[in-house]
Protein backbone atom coordinates (compact mmCIF):
# COMPACT_ATOMS: atom_id res chain seq x y z
CA UNK A 1 0.00 0.00 0.00
CA UNK A 2 1.32 3.48 -0.81
CA UNK A 3 0.08 6.82 0.45
CA UNK A 4 1.34 10.14 -0.97
CA UNK A 5 4.28 8.25 -2.42
CA UNK A 6 5.30 6.69 0.87
CA UNK A 7 5.16 2.97 1.41
CA UNK A 8 2.82 2.25 4.29
CA UNK A 9 3.22 -1.10 6.01
CA UNK A 10 0.14 -3.32 6.28
CA UNK A 11 -0.08 -2.88 10.02
CA UNK A 12 -0.63 0.83 9.51
CA UNK A 13 -4.06 0.16 8.05
CA UNK A 14 -4.96 -1.68 11.19
CA UNK A 15 -3.67 1.23 13.24
CA UNK A 16 -6.00 3.63 11.42
CA UNK A 17 -8.99 1.49 12.33
CA UNK A 18 -7.85 1.32 15.94
CA UNK A 19 -7.68 5.10 16.06
CA UNK A 20 -11.15 5.41 14.51
CA UNK A 21 -12.45 2.94 17.08
CA UNK A 22 -10.80 4.92 19.89
CA UNK A 23 -12.38 8.19 18.72
CA UNK A 24 -15.86 6.70 18.36
CA UNK A 25 -15.48 5.08 21.75
CA UNK A 26 -14.46 8.41 23.34
CA UNK A 27 -17.74 9.99 22.24
CA UNK A 28 -19.50 7.64 24.58
CA UNK A 29 -22.40 7.49 22.13
CA UNK A 30 -22.81 3.81 21.98
CA UNK A 31 -22.69 1.59 24.95
CA UNK A 32 -21.58 -1.13 22.56
CA UNK A 33 -18.26 0.55 21.72
CA UNK A 34 -15.96 1.36 24.60
CA UNK A 35 -12.70 3.11 23.60
CA UNK A 36 -10.00 0.79 22.33
CA UNK A 37 -7.68 1.61 25.21
CA UNK A 38 -10.33 0.38 27.61
CA UNK A 39 -10.60 -2.86 25.63
CA UNK A 40 -6.84 -3.26 25.87
CA UNK A 41 -6.96 -2.84 29.62
CA UNK A 42 -9.80 -5.33 29.86
CA UNK A 43 -7.67 -7.73 27.83
CA UNK A 44 -5.34 -8.23 30.79
CA UNK A 45 -8.32 -8.66 33.04
CA UNK A 46 -9.86 -11.31 30.83
CA UNK A 47 -6.69 -13.28 30.24
CA UNK A 48 -5.83 -13.52 33.92
CA UNK A 49 -9.32 -14.38 35.09
CA UNK A 50 -10.05 -17.87 36.33
CA UNK A 51 -13.16 -18.27 34.24
CA UNK A 52 -11.18 -17.45 31.10
CA UNK A 53 -8.66 -20.22 31.72
CA UNK A 54 -11.51 -22.64 32.31
CA UNK A 55 -13.38 -21.42 29.23
CA UNK A 56 -10.29 -21.82 27.03
CA UNK A 57 -9.66 -25.28 28.41
CA UNK A 58 -13.16 -26.51 27.67
CA UNK A 59 -13.20 -24.76 24.29
CA UNK A 60 -9.89 -26.27 23.25
CA UNK A 61 -11.09 -29.67 24.38
CA UNK A 62 -14.38 -29.55 22.44
CA UNK A 63 -12.53 -28.20 19.42
CA UNK A 64 -9.87 -30.90 19.48
CA UNK A 65 -12.44 -33.67 19.96
CA UNK A 66 -14.71 -32.40 17.20
CA UNK A 67 -11.82 -31.96 14.82
CA UNK A 68 -10.29 -35.35 15.56
CA UNK A 69 -13.68 -36.90 14.91
CA UNK A 70 -14.02 -34.95 11.67
CA UNK A 71 -10.61 -36.16 10.45
CA UNK A 72 -11.25 -39.74 11.58
CA UNK A 73 -14.53 -39.81 9.66
CA UNK A 74 -13.80 -37.38 6.84
CA UNK A 75 -10.59 -38.88 5.46
CA UNK A 76 -11.89 -42.49 5.20
CA UNK A 77 -15.19 -41.27 3.78
CA UNK A 78 -13.35 -39.18 1.18
CA UNK A 79 -11.13 -42.14 0.31
CA UNK A 80 -14.19 -44.32 -0.10
CA UNK A 81 -15.88 -41.80 -2.37
CA UNK A 82 -12.72 -41.32 -4.40
CA UNK A 83 -12.10 -45.03 -4.86
CA UNK A 84 -15.61 -46.46 -5.23
CA UNK A 85 -17.76 -44.74 -7.87
CA UNK A 86 -20.96 -46.32 -6.52
CA UNK A 87 -20.34 -44.86 -3.05
CA UNK A 88 -19.53 -41.53 -4.64
CA UNK A 89 -22.81 -41.48 -6.52
CA UNK A 90 -24.76 -42.12 -3.35
CA UNK A 91 -22.94 -39.75 -1.02
CA UNK A 92 -21.76 -36.86 -3.14
CA UNK A 93 -25.05 -34.95 -3.14
CA UNK A 94 -25.35 -35.19 0.64
CA UNK A 95 -21.82 -34.09 1.30
CA UNK A 96 -22.27 -31.11 -0.98
CA UNK A 97 -25.58 -30.22 0.63
CA UNK A 98 -24.08 -30.24 4.12
CA UNK A 99 -21.05 -28.30 2.93
CA UNK A 100 -23.16 -25.33 1.89
CA UNK A 101 -26.05 -25.70 4.34
CA UNK A 102 -26.47 -23.08 7.12
CA UNK A 103 -25.26 -25.43 9.83
CA UNK A 104 -25.90 -22.97 12.68
CA UNK A 105 -29.58 -23.65 12.15
CA UNK A 106 -28.96 -27.27 13.06
CA UNK A 107 -27.35 -26.52 16.42
CA UNK A 108 -30.74 -26.38 18.26
CA UNK A 109 -31.42 -29.85 16.90
CA UNK A 110 -28.08 -31.04 18.27
CA UNK A 111 -29.03 -29.49 21.62
CA UNK A 112 -32.14 -31.61 21.71
CA UNK A 113 -30.20 -34.69 20.69
CA UNK A 114 -27.06 -34.23 22.75
CA UNK A 115 -28.10 -31.95 25.61
CA UNK A 116 -26.91 -28.52 26.69
CA UNK A 117 -23.24 -29.33 27.06
CA UNK A 118 -19.92 -30.16 25.55
CA UNK A 119 -21.22 -33.03 23.34
CA UNK A 120 -23.36 -30.60 21.38
CA UNK A 121 -20.36 -28.32 20.86
CA UNK A 122 -18.26 -31.27 19.71
CA UNK A 123 -20.93 -32.30 17.22
CA UNK A 124 -21.14 -28.73 15.96
CA UNK A 125 -17.38 -28.57 15.37
CA UNK A 126 -17.58 -31.95 13.65
CA UNK A 127 -20.39 -30.85 11.36
CA UNK A 128 -18.60 -27.64 10.43
CA UNK A 129 -15.28 -29.33 9.70
CA UNK A 130 -15.99 -32.75 8.25
CA UNK A 131 -17.50 -32.05 4.82
CA UNK A 132 -14.66 -30.04 3.37
CA UNK A 133 -12.26 -32.75 4.55
CA UNK A 134 -14.37 -35.37 2.77
CA UNK A 135 -14.51 -33.41 -0.47
CA UNK A 136 -10.82 -32.51 -0.56
CA UNK A 137 -9.79 -36.07 0.19
CA UNK A 138 -12.09 -37.30 -2.56
CA UNK A 139 -10.60 -34.80 -5.02
CA UNK A 140 -7.11 -35.86 -3.98
CA UNK A 141 -7.84 -39.49 -4.71
CA UNK A 142 -9.51 -38.73 -8.02
CA UNK A 143 -6.52 -36.64 -9.11
CA UNK A 144 -4.05 -39.48 -8.67
CA UNK A 145 -2.62 -40.25 -12.07
CA UNK A 146 -3.81 -43.67 -13.26
CA UNK A 147 -0.31 -44.57 -14.37
CA UNK A 148 0.99 -44.27 -10.80
CA UNK A 149 -1.46 -46.96 -9.71
CA UNK A 150 -0.63 -49.06 -12.78
CA UNK A 151 3.03 -48.69 -11.85
CA UNK A 152 2.34 -50.01 -8.34
CA UNK A 153 0.33 -52.89 -9.80
CA UNK A 154 2.92 -53.82 -12.40
CA UNK A 155 5.76 -53.88 -9.87
CA UNK A 156 3.79 -56.25 -7.70
CA UNK A 157 2.67 -53.95 -4.87
CA UNK A 158 0.36 -55.61 -2.34
CA UNK A 159 -3.07 -54.20 -1.53
CA UNK A 160 -1.73 -52.60 1.63
CA UNK A 161 1.16 -51.03 -0.26
CA UNK A 162 -1.20 -49.69 -2.93
CA UNK A 163 -3.37 -48.20 -0.18
CA UNK A 164 -0.31 -46.45 1.19
CA UNK A 165 0.44 -45.03 -2.25
CA UNK A 166 -3.12 -43.73 -2.60
CA UNK A 167 -2.80 -42.02 0.77
CA UNK A 168 0.59 -40.47 0.03
CA UNK A 169 -0.44 -39.36 -3.45
CA UNK A 170 -3.57 -37.67 -2.11
CA UNK A 171 -1.82 -36.21 0.93
CA UNK A 172 -1.47 -32.62 -0.32
CA UNK A 173 -5.23 -32.37 -0.92
CA UNK A 174 -6.06 -34.17 2.31
CA UNK A 175 -3.98 -31.68 4.27
CA UNK A 176 -5.55 -28.75 2.44
CA UNK A 177 -8.94 -30.14 3.44
CA UNK A 178 -7.87 -30.52 7.05
CA UNK A 179 -6.60 -26.94 7.14
CA UNK A 180 -9.93 -25.63 5.81
CA UNK A 181 -11.71 -27.96 8.24
CA UNK A 182 -9.72 -26.48 11.13
CA UNK A 183 -10.75 -22.95 10.18
CA UNK A 184 -14.39 -23.97 9.81
CA UNK A 185 -14.10 -25.84 13.10
CA UNK A 186 -13.20 -22.58 14.90
CA UNK A 187 -16.45 -21.16 13.60
CA UNK A 188 -18.21 -24.28 14.79
CA UNK A 189 -16.84 -24.13 18.31
CA UNK A 190 -17.71 -20.46 18.78
CA UNK A 191 -21.19 -20.75 17.29
CA UNK A 192 -21.88 -23.93 19.21
CA UNK A 193 -20.84 -22.42 22.52
CA UNK A 194 -22.68 -19.15 21.87
CA UNK A 195 -25.89 -21.01 21.23
CA UNK A 196 -25.46 -23.41 24.11
CA UNK A 197 -24.23 -20.36 26.06
CA UNK A 198 -23.56 -22.05 29.36
CA UNK A 199 -20.13 -23.47 28.63
CA UNK A 200 -16.74 -22.23 27.49
CA UNK A 201 -16.33 -18.89 25.79
CA UNK A 202 -20.07 -18.89 25.09
CA UNK A 203 -20.72 -18.68 28.81
CA UNK A 204 -18.13 -15.91 29.12
CA UNK A 205 -19.74 -13.94 26.32
CA UNK A 206 -23.14 -14.07 27.94
CA UNK A 207 -21.62 -13.23 31.31
CA UNK A 208 -19.93 -10.10 29.94
CA UNK A 209 -23.01 -9.14 27.98
CA UNK A 210 -25.41 -9.49 30.86
CA UNK A 211 -23.17 -7.39 33.09
CA UNK A 212 -22.56 -4.75 30.41
CA UNK A 213 -18.82 -5.43 30.44
CA UNK A 214 -18.48 -4.37 26.81
CA UNK A 215 -14.70 -3.81 27.01
CA UNK A 216 -14.30 -7.36 28.24
CA UNK A 217 -16.64 -8.56 25.53
CA UNK A 218 -14.51 -7.00 22.80
CA UNK A 219 -11.31 -8.16 24.42
CA UNK A 220 -12.56 -11.72 24.23
CA UNK A 221 -13.44 -11.30 20.56
CA UNK A 222 -9.95 -9.96 19.83
CA UNK A 223 -8.44 -12.91 21.64
CA UNK A 224 -10.48 -15.41 19.67
CA UNK A 225 -9.57 -13.74 16.38
CA UNK A 226 -5.89 -13.82 17.25
CA UNK A 227 -6.07 -17.48 18.21
CA UNK A 228 -7.91 -18.51 15.05
CA UNK A 229 -5.41 -16.65 12.86
CA UNK A 230 -2.43 -18.16 14.67
CA UNK A 231 -3.89 -21.63 14.28
CA UNK A 232 -4.50 -21.30 10.56
CA UNK A 233 -1.03 -19.82 10.12
CA UNK A 234 0.54 -22.79 11.85
CA UNK A 235 -1.31 -25.32 9.74
CA UNK A 236 -0.52 -23.39 6.59
CA UNK A 237 3.18 -23.57 7.41
CA UNK A 238 2.96 -27.30 8.02
CA UNK A 239 1.13 -27.76 4.76
CA UNK A 240 3.78 -25.94 2.73
CA UNK A 241 6.34 -28.54 3.69
CA UNK A 242 4.32 -31.22 1.93
CA UNK A 243 2.72 -29.20 -0.81
CA UNK A 244 5.88 -29.03 -2.90
CA UNK A 245 5.12 -32.27 -4.64
CA UNK A 246 1.47 -31.56 -5.41
CA UNK A 247 2.34 -29.47 -8.44
CA UNK A 248 4.81 -31.97 -9.81
CA UNK A 249 2.32 -34.72 -10.48
CA UNK A 250 1.52 -35.34 -14.08
Amino acid sequence: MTLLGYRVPMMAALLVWVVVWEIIGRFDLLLLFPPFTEVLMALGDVVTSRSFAEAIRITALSYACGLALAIAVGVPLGLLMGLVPAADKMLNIWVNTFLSAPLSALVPVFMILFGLGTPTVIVTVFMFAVWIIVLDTRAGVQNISPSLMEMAHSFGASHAERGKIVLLAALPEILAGIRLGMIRGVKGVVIGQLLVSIIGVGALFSLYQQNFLMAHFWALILLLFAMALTLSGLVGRLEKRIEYYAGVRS
Partner: protein
Amino acid sequence: MSIAMQIETENAVPAASNPIIEVKGISKIYGSDIVALENIDLAFEEGQLTSLLGPSGCGKTTLLKIVAGLLKPSHGEILVKGKKVHGPGPERAFVFQDFALMPWANVMQNVAFGLKMQGVGKAAREDTARHYISEVGLSGFEQKFPHQLSGGMRQRVGLARALAVNADVLLMDEPFSAVDEQTRRKFQEDLMRLREVEKKTFLFVTHSIEEAVYVSDRIVLLSPRPGRVSQIIDPDIPQDIGPDELRRNDVYLDTVESIWHGIKKYVE
Protein backbone atom coordinates in the same frame (compact mmCIF):
# COMPACT_ATOMS: atom_id res chain seq x y z
CA MET B 1 19.41 -55.98 -50.60
CA SER B 2 22.74 -57.71 -50.43
CA ILE B 3 23.06 -61.43 -49.90
CA ALA B 4 24.65 -60.91 -46.51
CA MET B 5 21.62 -59.01 -45.36
CA GLN B 6 19.21 -61.60 -46.55
CA ILE B 7 21.02 -64.26 -44.60
CA GLU B 8 20.83 -62.07 -41.57
CA THR B 9 17.14 -61.59 -42.17
CA GLU B 10 16.57 -65.30 -42.29
CA ASN B 11 18.42 -65.74 -39.05
CA ALA B 12 16.40 -63.03 -37.44
CA VAL B 13 13.02 -64.47 -38.40
CA PRO B 14 13.18 -68.14 -37.53
CA ALA B 15 9.63 -69.26 -36.98
CA ALA B 16 10.62 -72.05 -34.65
CA SER B 17 13.12 -70.51 -32.23
CA ASN B 18 12.16 -69.75 -28.65
CA PRO B 19 9.96 -66.71 -28.33
CA ILE B 20 9.92 -65.33 -24.79
CA ILE B 21 6.48 -63.79 -25.25
CA GLU B 22 3.67 -65.13 -27.38
CA VAL B 23 0.54 -63.18 -28.16
CA LYS B 24 -2.18 -65.61 -29.17
CA GLY B 25 -5.43 -64.52 -30.75
CA ILE B 26 -5.67 -61.38 -28.64
CA SER B 27 -8.72 -59.17 -29.09
CA LYS B 28 -9.76 -56.27 -26.92
CA ILE B 29 -13.19 -54.70 -26.98
CA TYR B 30 -13.73 -51.64 -24.80
CA GLY B 31 -17.30 -51.29 -23.56
CA SER B 32 -19.56 -53.02 -26.01
CA ASP B 33 -18.48 -51.75 -29.40
CA ILE B 34 -14.99 -50.21 -29.42
CA VAL B 35 -12.83 -52.90 -30.97
CA ALA B 36 -9.33 -51.78 -30.10
CA LEU B 37 -7.52 -54.97 -31.10
CA GLU B 38 -8.67 -57.81 -33.31
CA ASN B 39 -7.10 -61.23 -33.36
CA ILE B 40 -3.44 -60.36 -32.85
CA ASP B 41 -0.89 -63.17 -33.15
CA LEU B 42 2.71 -62.26 -32.45
CA ALA B 43 5.85 -63.77 -31.03
CA PHE B 44 8.69 -61.80 -29.51
CA GLU B 45 12.15 -63.31 -29.70
CA GLU B 46 14.38 -63.33 -26.69
CA GLY B 47 17.01 -60.61 -26.70
CA GLN B 48 15.38 -58.62 -29.48
CA LEU B 49 14.01 -55.14 -29.54
CA THR B 50 10.60 -55.04 -31.19
CA SER B 51 8.78 -51.81 -31.93
CA LEU B 52 5.03 -51.47 -32.16
CA LEU B 53 4.29 -48.79 -34.69
CA GLY B 54 1.01 -47.48 -35.96
CA PRO B 55 -1.33 -44.50 -36.25
CA SER B 56 -2.73 -42.93 -33.10
CA GLY B 57 -5.54 -44.91 -31.51
CA CYS B 58 -4.67 -48.21 -33.21
CA GLY B 59 -4.24 -50.02 -29.91
CA LYS B 60 -0.47 -49.98 -29.25
CA THR B 61 -0.85 -49.02 -25.60
CA THR B 62 -3.69 -51.50 -25.22
CA LEU B 63 -1.55 -54.33 -26.58
CA LEU B 64 1.40 -53.41 -24.40
CA LYS B 65 -0.77 -53.24 -21.27
CA ILE B 66 -2.30 -56.60 -22.07
CA VAL B 67 1.18 -58.09 -22.38
CA ALA B 68 2.07 -56.39 -19.09
CA GLY B 69 -0.96 -57.95 -17.43
CA LEU B 70 -2.42 -54.54 -16.57
CA LEU B 71 -5.41 -55.08 -18.87
CA LYS B 72 -7.44 -58.21 -19.43
CA PRO B 73 -7.91 -59.18 -23.09
CA SER B 74 -11.44 -59.90 -24.30
CA HIS B 75 -10.18 -62.96 -26.17
CA GLY B 76 -6.91 -64.79 -26.48
CA GLU B 77 -3.97 -65.32 -24.19
CA ILE B 78 -0.44 -64.19 -23.44
CA LEU B 79 2.30 -66.73 -22.88
CA VAL B 80 5.53 -65.75 -21.17
CA LYS B 81 8.22 -68.43 -21.54
CA GLY B 82 5.47 -70.81 -22.57
CA LYS B 83 3.27 -70.17 -19.54
CA LYS B 84 -0.05 -68.39 -19.64
CA VAL B 85 -0.11 -65.21 -17.54
CA HIS B 86 -3.03 -63.68 -15.63
CA GLY B 87 -1.51 -60.47 -14.37
CA PRO B 88 1.75 -58.57 -13.95
CA GLY B 89 4.78 -60.66 -13.10
CA PRO B 90 8.41 -60.18 -12.12
CA GLU B 91 9.64 -61.26 -15.55
CA ARG B 92 8.09 -58.16 -17.13
CA ALA B 93 8.78 -54.53 -16.20
CA PHE B 94 6.97 -51.47 -17.53
CA VAL B 95 8.39 -48.07 -18.43
CA PHE B 96 5.65 -45.45 -18.47
CA GLN B 97 5.16 -42.63 -20.93
CA ASP B 98 4.54 -40.14 -18.10
CA PHE B 99 7.30 -41.70 -15.95
CA ALA B 100 4.89 -42.59 -13.09
CA LEU B 101 7.39 -41.70 -10.37
CA MET B 102 6.34 -41.29 -6.76
CA PRO B 103 6.74 -37.55 -6.11
CA TRP B 104 7.27 -38.03 -2.37
CA ALA B 105 10.13 -40.48 -2.85
CA ASN B 106 13.67 -39.67 -3.92
CA VAL B 107 15.48 -41.23 -6.87
CA MET B 108 16.91 -44.03 -4.76
CA GLN B 109 13.53 -44.97 -3.32
CA ASN B 110 11.84 -44.76 -6.71
CA VAL B 111 14.40 -46.99 -8.39
CA ALA B 112 14.34 -49.48 -5.51
CA PHE B 113 10.53 -49.61 -5.46
CA GLY B 114 10.12 -52.84 -7.43
CA LEU B 115 12.77 -54.60 -5.35
CA LYS B 116 11.11 -53.44 -2.16
CA MET B 117 7.82 -54.89 -3.37
CA GLN B 118 9.63 -58.17 -3.97
CA GLY B 119 10.79 -58.17 -0.38
CA VAL B 120 14.48 -57.47 -1.02
CA GLY B 121 16.22 -56.08 2.08
CA LYS B 122 17.13 -52.42 2.31
CA ALA B 123 20.89 -52.73 1.93
CA ALA B 124 20.65 -55.17 -0.98
CA ARG B 125 18.05 -53.22 -2.88
CA GLU B 126 19.92 -49.95 -2.44
CA ASP B 127 23.07 -51.55 -3.81
CA THR B 128 21.20 -52.77 -6.87
CA ALA B 129 19.39 -49.46 -7.28
CA ARG B 130 22.69 -47.56 -7.04
CA HIS B 131 24.14 -49.74 -9.78
CA TYR B 132 21.28 -49.02 -12.19
CA ILE B 133 21.14 -45.35 -11.27
CA SER B 134 24.72 -45.12 -12.46
CA GLU B 135 23.92 -47.32 -15.45
CA VAL B 136 21.42 -44.74 -16.70
CA GLY B 137 23.82 -41.90 -15.92
CA LEU B 138 22.25 -40.45 -12.79
CA SER B 139 25.01 -41.05 -10.25
CA GLY B 140 24.99 -38.32 -7.65
CA PHE B 141 21.25 -37.73 -7.97
CA GLU B 142 20.22 -40.54 -5.60
CA GLN B 143 18.82 -38.18 -2.96
CA LYS B 144 17.06 -35.83 -5.38
CA PHE B 145 13.29 -35.77 -5.71
CA PRO B 146 11.46 -36.10 -9.05
CA HIS B 147 10.45 -32.43 -9.12
CA GLN B 148 14.12 -31.48 -8.98
CA LEU B 149 14.88 -33.40 -12.19
CA SER B 150 14.31 -32.62 -15.86
CA GLY B 151 11.91 -34.71 -17.94
CA GLY B 152 14.76 -36.68 -19.48
CA MET B 153 16.24 -37.42 -16.09
CA ARG B 154 12.86 -38.54 -14.74
CA GLN B 155 12.51 -41.01 -17.56
CA ARG B 156 15.97 -42.34 -16.73
CA VAL B 157 14.71 -42.97 -13.23
CA GLY B 158 11.74 -44.87 -14.70
CA LEU B 159 14.14 -46.88 -16.84
CA ALA B 160 16.44 -47.64 -13.91
CA ARG B 161 13.45 -48.78 -11.86
CA ALA B 162 12.46 -51.22 -14.60
CA LEU B 163 16.04 -52.48 -15.01
CA ALA B 164 16.57 -52.91 -11.28
CA VAL B 165 14.01 -55.70 -10.91
CA ASN B 166 16.02 -57.67 -13.46
CA ALA B 167 13.00 -58.58 -15.55
CA ASP B 168 13.63 -60.43 -18.81
CA VAL B 169 11.26 -58.24 -20.75
CA LEU B 170 11.04 -54.45 -20.71
CA LEU B 171 7.77 -52.97 -21.91
CA MET B 172 8.10 -49.34 -22.90
CA ASP B 173 5.16 -47.15 -23.91
CA GLU B 174 6.46 -44.18 -25.86
CA PRO B 175 9.13 -43.67 -23.24
CA PHE B 176 10.82 -40.82 -25.06
CA SER B 177 7.81 -38.86 -26.26
CA ALA B 178 7.81 -36.48 -23.30
CA VAL B 179 11.45 -35.45 -23.64
CA ASP B 180 13.10 -33.04 -26.03
CA GLU B 181 14.72 -34.12 -29.30
CA GLN B 182 18.35 -34.02 -28.12
CA THR B 183 17.59 -36.03 -25.01
CA ARG B 184 15.60 -38.39 -27.16
CA ARG B 185 18.54 -39.15 -29.43
CA LYS B 186 20.82 -39.67 -26.48
CA PHE B 187 18.20 -42.01 -25.05
CA GLN B 188 17.97 -44.03 -28.23
CA GLU B 189 21.71 -44.58 -28.20
CA ASP B 190 21.63 -45.50 -24.53
CA LEU B 191 18.81 -47.92 -25.22
CA MET B 192 20.79 -49.70 -27.90
CA ARG B 193 23.82 -49.89 -25.64
CA LEU B 194 21.66 -51.22 -22.80
CA ARG B 195 20.30 -53.91 -25.05
CA GLU B 196 23.85 -55.07 -25.71
CA VAL B 197 24.87 -54.95 -22.05
CA GLU B 198 21.73 -56.24 -20.36
CA LYS B 199 20.68 -58.82 -22.96
CA LYS B 200 17.03 -58.12 -22.37
CA THR B 201 14.00 -58.32 -24.58
CA PHE B 202 12.42 -54.96 -25.32
CA LEU B 203 8.91 -54.16 -26.49
CA PHE B 204 8.81 -50.59 -27.51
CA VAL B 205 5.84 -48.48 -28.54
CA THR B 206 6.59 -45.44 -30.63
CA HIS B 207 4.97 -42.96 -32.97
CA SER B 208 8.16 -42.25 -34.79
CA ILE B 209 9.09 -44.30 -37.85
CA GLU B 210 12.68 -43.03 -37.70
CA GLU B 211 13.00 -44.04 -34.08
CA ALA B 212 11.56 -47.49 -34.77
CA VAL B 213 13.88 -48.15 -37.69
CA TYR B 214 16.85 -46.84 -35.77
CA VAL B 215 16.51 -48.90 -32.62
CA SER B 216 14.55 -52.02 -33.61
CA ASP B 217 15.42 -55.55 -34.63
CA ARG B 218 11.85 -55.92 -35.72
CA ILE B 219 8.97 -53.55 -36.35
CA VAL B 220 5.34 -54.59 -36.03
CA LEU B 221 3.05 -52.29 -37.95
CA LEU B 222 -0.53 -52.13 -36.68
CA SER B 223 -3.48 -50.98 -38.76
CA PRO B 224 -5.95 -48.38 -37.46
CA ARG B 225 -8.93 -49.47 -35.38
CA PRO B 226 -9.66 -52.32 -35.18
CA GLY B 227 -5.94 -52.86 -34.64
CA ARG B 228 -4.51 -55.77 -36.59
CA VAL B 229 -0.97 -56.70 -37.55
CA SER B 230 -0.61 -55.18 -40.98
CA GLN B 231 3.10 -55.74 -41.62
CA ILE B 232 6.24 -57.03 -39.96
CA ILE B 233 9.54 -55.48 -40.97
CA ASP B 234 13.04 -56.51 -39.99
CA PRO B 235 15.31 -53.56 -40.73
CA ASP B 236 18.71 -54.62 -41.98
CA ILE B 237 20.75 -51.72 -40.74
CA PRO B 238 24.49 -52.41 -40.63
CA GLN B 239 25.50 -52.85 -36.99
CA ASP B 240 28.93 -51.30 -37.06
CA ILE B 241 28.25 -47.72 -38.08
CA GLY B 242 27.86 -44.72 -35.80
CA PRO B 243 24.60 -42.92 -35.15
CA ASP B 244 25.35 -39.93 -37.36
CA GLU B 245 26.47 -42.08 -40.25
CA LEU B 246 23.40 -44.22 -39.80
CA ARG B 247 20.95 -41.40 -40.30
CA ARG B 248 22.44 -41.00 -43.78
CA ASN B 249 22.60 -44.73 -44.49
CA ASP B 250 20.72 -45.92 -47.60
CA VAL B 251 19.20 -49.01 -46.01
CA TYR B 252 17.97 -46.88 -43.12
CA LEU B 253 16.42 -44.29 -45.41
CA ASP B 254 14.85 -46.95 -47.65
CA THR B 255 13.29 -48.74 -44.69
CA VAL B 256 11.84 -45.51 -43.32
CA GLU B 257 10.48 -44.75 -46.78
CA SER B 258 8.85 -48.16 -47.24
CA ILE B 259 7.20 -48.07 -43.80
CA TRP B 260 5.91 -44.61 -44.55
CA HIS B 261 4.37 -46.02 -47.73
CA GLY B 262 2.73 -48.75 -45.68
CA ILE B 263 1.27 -46.26 -43.22
CA LYS B 264 0.39 -43.50 -45.65
CA LYS B 265 -2.76 -45.22 -46.91
CA TYR B 266 -4.22 -45.06 -43.40
CA VAL B 267 -3.38 -41.46 -42.83
CA GLU B 268 -4.91 -40.20 -46.04
